[in-house]
């Protein structure tokens, strides 16, 4: 029983982690909570659904298509809603703008697709494998493998490629990066593109896994993923991964052993407790304020 719950939690946690990465990467560079990020995830789920139902695409194509569309959408949101405000106003204005972008996207999708919950057609055989005491559905296998692959890919990108190094430089000192010839705006665009692609992949997989897609699905998922990012230490990429997995596992355990009506309360309750004990999050760095 506990192993089964652990596996379910890991599956849910992987999707939280995929979304949380977008929050943490953007925060790391521009110190902005991109509240529209949950909506990017929602749009990803819808694009996947569209590709599957209208074009009869398989899961891989749906996922790649959703990632591509959301990359563009993420870059567009940054260009329109955040860039004009950067450096010209208080920290609060981009935050309000982010909320606006979030509401705009979910409402737009409600207008286009209607507010009803839509279901994915059976894109994936729902085979299931017995692994000792644990039942593993094929969709769970896909979620775990794809999430792991994407996160390893991201780690490689950040650690070894030029754009990754530029992203790390920008996250440490944005002004000095610009003065060293790094096109900061371009690095920020890439950051939004990469984070959005990860969220889109998560959106498609969650849509298939839970067999439900609706225009407001990004709100709670976004909040949970944001909580996961803060839990792991916002700004830290391994932190977002760890935070996502931790939150997913604890949430499923809470549902299984306490009560399912506490599902969302558990996630945020844990967040509050962790932040009281360790305000910088699990892997976050302690901020020493310069005087």
């Amino acid at each position, binding site marked *: 029983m506990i192993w089964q719950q652990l596996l379910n939690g890991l599956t849910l946690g992987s999707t939280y982690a995929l979304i949380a990465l977008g929050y943490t990467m953007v925060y790391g560079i521009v110190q902005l909570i991109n509240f529209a990020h949950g909506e990017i995830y929602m749009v990803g789920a819808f694009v996947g659904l569209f590709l599957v139902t209208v074009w009869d695409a398989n899961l891989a194509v749906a996922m790649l298509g959703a990632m591509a569309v959301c990359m563009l959408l993420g870059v567009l949101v940054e260009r329109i809603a955040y860039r004009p405000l950067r450096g010209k106003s208080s920290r609060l204005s981009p935050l309000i703008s982010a909320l606006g972008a979030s509401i705009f996207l979910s409402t737009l999708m409600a207008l286009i697709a209607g507010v009803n919950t839509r279901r994915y057609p059976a894109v994936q055989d729902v085979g299931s494998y017995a692994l000792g005491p644990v039942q593993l559905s094929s969709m769970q296998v896909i979620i775990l493998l794809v999430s792991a692959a994407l996160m390893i890919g991201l780690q490689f990108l950040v650690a070894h490629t030029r754009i990754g190094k530029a992203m790390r430089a920008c996250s440490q*000192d944005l002004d000095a990066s610009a003065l060293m010839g790094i096109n900061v705006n371009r690095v920020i665009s890439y950051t939004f593109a990469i984070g959005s692609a990860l969220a889109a992949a998560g959106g498609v997989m969650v849509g298939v896994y839970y067999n439900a897609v609706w225009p407001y699905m990004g709100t709670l998922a976004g909040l949970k993923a944001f909580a996961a990012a803060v839990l792991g230490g916002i700004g830290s990429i391994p932190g977002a991964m760890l935070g996502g997995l931790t939150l997913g596992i604890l949430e499923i355990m809470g549902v299984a052993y306490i009560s399912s009506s506490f599902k969302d309360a558990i996630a945020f309750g844990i967040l509050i407790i962790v932040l009281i004990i360790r305000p910088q999050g699990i892997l976050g760095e302690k901020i020493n304020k310069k005087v």
Partner: protein
Amino acid sequence: MPVLELRGISQEFGGLRALDGIDLQVPRHAIFGIIGPNGAGKTTLFNVITGIYPPTEGQLLFQQQPIASWSSHKVARLGVGRTFQNIRLFNRLSVLDNVKVAANWNRSAGFWASILGLPSYSREQKHCQEKAEALIDMLGLYDKRMEYAQSLSYGEQRRLEIARALIAEPSLLLLDEPAAGMNSSEKIELMDLIWKIRDDMQLTILLVEHDMHLVMSICEQIAVLDYGRKIAEGRPEQIKSDPRVIQSYLGVEA
């Protein structure tokens, strides 16, 4: 022909005039010093030159090209490198990566080339690696190239900042108080280094410094700022004997 020319540059911050009508011509291959008391506007001048804020008034010409409204990264790519008064390295990048990240990005070796591992990317990468290693070696940091920048000693961090500023092959290098916090033997090494960089890399150096011995020894020309105005300019021996400079900055003894 001057590398850098300032014509009537002024910079206001909400009513405070940090720079007031500065005219300056920095000749090619010069080592040019800027001195003045704290708050005279020296670092502001550097920030205006490197595009951190556009000047309120005046013209800024780099190699006869107006750059007053350019963004920082464009100014840097055009050939202006700089270091900082308070060291601003990328602390959690290795010494080598600190330098490599500042190398000029070739368009053909951008994002997709790096993702797809195209030959143009690996070629560029290799070239960049060799250039960065050579620079790090020149500045005596080769043995520490894999360490995090934050683990270096103070003097090493200052040298790493210079290496990072040089990788993009600037034609003008701005050094903001390069000798701050150094002892006298380190200062002598620094002077040798500045001469060597200027001669080997054929560039022009503009530096802000409080250490008068260093400034007077290495600068061929010096401008003195006070309250955002240029109050004197000339060769070191002229500056030393200028009554206004002595009164506002050097003191009677100097």
